[in-house]
């Protein structure tokens, strides 16, 4: 392996968060095209089956993670509350912050129809969201955004860009009608009781 490849390898290992090609190029004092080639060589070397450590594209950069076969042993060590432990409320809040971010508690509460305080607090503790300024609306509520840790935990290669478009999660038009009809039914039942 070339000296540049060694340098890229060391930088990615030492860094606490994924590094972009541009960042690596600056730190290694090498042109981005050569950095890309070094990354290719490293990806070939650090891949599933071949190594206990895998170099992956994540959060718009590159970072090492434990390979699939070693994940269980590593999870015992890292002892980080995993994404698996997230409640439905936390997941919904996370989705809202990821798509709307920066988002305030009142905005989250408006969408979920319930106060978001405990879900927000839990996500802050886990480091999946962070404060990112204050809103312009009255009261200047604190705004929250997702973190790099969130992007890594959910394996978003290009960061938030890798999220599917919200439109993909829309109910089909046909179901809109069904929902509307049922709402109507409930409203009628209500009127009938009056």
């Amino acid at each position: 392996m070339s000296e540049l490849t060694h340098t890229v390898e060391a930088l990615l290992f030492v860094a606490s968060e994924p590094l972009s090609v541009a960042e690596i190029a600056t730190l290694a004092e090498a042109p981005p095209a050569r950095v890309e080639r070094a990354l290719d060589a490293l990806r070939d070397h650090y891949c599933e089956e071949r190594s206990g450590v895998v170099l992956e594209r994540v959060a718009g950069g590159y970072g090492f993670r434990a390979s699939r076969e070693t994940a269980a042993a590593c999870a015992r060590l890292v002892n980080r509350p995993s994404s698996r432990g997230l409640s439905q409320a936390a997941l919904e809040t996370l989705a809202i912050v990821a798509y709307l971010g920066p988002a305030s508690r009142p905005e989250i509460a408006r969408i979920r129809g319930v106060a978001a305080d405990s879900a927000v607090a839990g996500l802050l503790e886990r480091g999946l969201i962070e404060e990112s300024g204050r809103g312009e609306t009255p009261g200047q509520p604190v705004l929250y955004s997702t973190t790099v840790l969130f992007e890594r935990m959910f394996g978003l290669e290009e960061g938030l860009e890798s999220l599917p478009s919200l439109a993909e999660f829309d109910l089909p038009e046909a179901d809109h009608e069904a929902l509307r009809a049922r709402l109507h039914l409930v409203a009628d039942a209500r009127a009938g009781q009056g």
Partner: protein
Amino acid sequence: MRPYNPGFVNLTQLDLDLEVFQGPFDLLLALVMREEIELAEVPIAEIVVAYVERAYDDGELDLESASEFLVLIAALLEIKVRMLFPGEEDEEGDGMTAEEAEAELLARLLEYKRYVAAAAWLSGRAAAEPRVFRVGPAPLAPRPQPVVDEFSEDPWQLQTAVGRLLRPPPEIDLSAVRRRLVPVSEFLARFRAVLRERRAFTFDEAVAGLDRLSHAAAFLAILEMWKQGEVQAEQGEVFGPIRIARRGRAPAEEERAIA
């Protein structure tokens, strides 16, 4: 044995649903999607009992789920009260017509559904591959000697931060809860006593001079008695007086209180 009533939600169904209920919109959606439910018929006390029993069976009470359950039940009660007193809301409301309110609700439910689906996508993504990585610098990495702005941070921030950790949490004030408590059981006892003396009474005379929450509690008490087969209620016309009349034998289990 409880008289059969097609309006009732089967308790086993509810028990299943309790596991997926997470918030009022979720609840509302589930209720709306299941056409047979009329909220006025949902026995809230039974939902609470079912939840507590399940928590007891599980042998542990998860604080997060318990608090969400409380929020949910509170919302359910609020919706139910609004349905039982449909008139009053209009005076306080922002003048939306029923169609507008329905359109608004539909839009919000659709928006919420979208994020529920996004949450499911995230959850599936995380489950597909466990990702373990180091957070923070490597243990033997060179330690930074970065250029810092001297005196750039105020040391009193540190005192404030430690101060936060040194202050004991305030006692939880329960006075507000006590003040708002509306005992349905009291109405049950009161109505049962009245019906031992008289064959019937009207709802309006029973709640004359009481506040809105007490109206709701009184109504819940009557629903409960109706459910138990103790009374029958009649209303000649919409918005007309409701007459509550004794039915058959006197209840054996007077202490069976709800809420």
